[in-house]
């Protein structure tokens, strides 16, 4: 892969739910971001108001649903069948009857890893995500933040290029929020092609860790009435704007301005 190559391509996707057109002519591309000497994955923020169709889009990206029209493809135009794209659901579902370690082992074995390979990868991930002490716990014994980390780790037992996360920042306290943002950056930067797509309406958190922001919204007429399904209304290339990959981004005088601008744009979606 060369710098700027397309990793994820969503082309003219249409989706109806009952009579309602949810997604309409939705297209966007995620390209490989390259920084010389640094392994840099992609973090893409997908912002949109509640009910706009974000979760529908996630399900299509994950291969769980097929669009009525249009295509989703990976590097080189390869199709992305279900199971090839990781998805961390908003409620972090886990297998309640299995321990944390067993949850990871199931994920490994479901993906064709041998028992020993799944075990070594699972233990390494638990260590990396500071969950080793919770390996024998059941999901019911975990806090929300710990459940989230297990859910992410489970998706990483088998190396996947794409990880989709549905509202990863919702309901987190400031410390947990900082933890999860670090974790997302770490996951993205495990491999040059890794791409994390965050579906969220937490504008500030999305701005702080994304390299690209897509704003998903519907068209309205002069009276403010919705007249179309959702599609990408605006794209922010934060790398081009000098507002990506910076730990001190919040200190940048340009940050409040872009945050205000995105908030304004969000209100109009």
């Amino acid at each position, binding site marked *: 892969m060369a710098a700027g190559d397309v990793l994820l391509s969503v082309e003219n996707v249409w989706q109806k739910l009952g009579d309602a057109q949810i997604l309409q002519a939705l297209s966007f591309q995620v390209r490989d971001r390259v920084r010389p000497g640094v392994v840099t994955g992609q973090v893409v923020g997908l912002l949109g108001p509640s009910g706009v169709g974000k979760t529908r889009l996630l399900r299509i990206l994950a291969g769980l649903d097929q669009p009525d029209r249009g295509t989703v493809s990976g590097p080189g135009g390869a199709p992305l069948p279900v199971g090839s794209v990781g998805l961390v659901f908003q409620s972090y579902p886990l297998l309640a*009857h299995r321990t944390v370690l067993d949850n990871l082992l199931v994920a490994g074995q479901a993906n064709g890893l041998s028992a020993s390979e799944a075990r070594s990868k699972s233990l390494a991930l638990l260590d990396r995500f500071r969950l080793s002490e919770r390996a024998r716990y059941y*999901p*019911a014994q975990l806090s929300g933040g710990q459940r989230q980390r297990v859910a992410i780790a489970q998706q990483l037992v088998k190396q996947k290029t794409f990880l989709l996360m549905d509202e990863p920042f919702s309901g987190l306290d400031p410390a947990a929020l900082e933890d999860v943002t670090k974790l997302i950056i770490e996951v993205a930067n495990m491999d040059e092609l890794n791409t994390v797509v965050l579906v969220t309406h937490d504008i500030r958190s999305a701005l702080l860790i994304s390299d690209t922001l897509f704003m998903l919204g519907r068209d309205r007429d002069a009276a403010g009435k919705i007249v179309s399904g959702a599609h990408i209304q605006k794209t922010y290339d934060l790398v081009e704007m000098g507002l990506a990959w910076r730990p001190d981004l919040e200190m940048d005088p340009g940050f409040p301005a872009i945050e205000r601008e995105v908030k304004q744009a969000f209100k109009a979606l």
Partner: protein
Amino acid sequence: MTPQDAQVSPATKPERSGPALARRVFFPNQVLGQPLVLIVTAFWVALAVTVWSASPWSSLPGPGEVVRAFGTLWWQQGMGPELFSTLKLILHATFLTVVISMLVSYASIIAFFRPVVEAVSKLRFLGLTGLVFPFTLATGGGYSLKVWLLTFGMSTFFVTAMAQAVLEIPREQYDYMRVLGASEGRIFWEVVVRGTLDKALDTLRQNLAMGWAMITMVEGISRAEGGVGALILNQNKHFHLAEVYAVLIAILVLGLLLDYLMAISVRVLCPHVLLQRVRR
């Protein structure tokens, strides 16, 4: 500290002062420690025995008469072997119920079989009485007839409960496994079979109780083969009420023992369930 210890709530700390203890016992939604649960239970048992002893209906046998009748039944009329015979019948029917009901309930994930599952579930509205003749023709009567009647009676309720448990599995649980890359077979095992095992055990627990409730009717069909159902009907025919109650209490004790064993099996096979249950 074990993971389970970490879950102990401060509300289960031993009660100390009198008012605090009274508040725990009489206020709604309080969590009681084990010693206090035993004390409260003992109080209610003592109250029940007192009310029974002081019953104004002289035609009803008192506790002493029932205890004496129990001794007579046990030592002179072979209640032990009768109980064993009934227990064997119930466990045999329960085994068949579990196998048949689980297969039928799990089949509900396949659209083709859903009408069959619905139909089996609806059969619970039929009483057993009218079914004796066709079941006799099918089984040849005797022990087989009793086993299959009991199996039929229990299965219709078991299928209703388990099919509902399978139906209530959230769609997200299947999608989550699909996203992990699991095959449909693996999803069936993890989500449907393992994921509902606790509910299956709870349903089995309820069905064992139903088996005991149906036993008098089923064993009454062929009294020659004995069993506590036949014993109770014979004693009832002669209006030996003390003996009838003695048998009922024996059934209750055996039922409670089986219930306790089922509770232990849930604890052993599904320890996660205990962590999710809130005791009030």
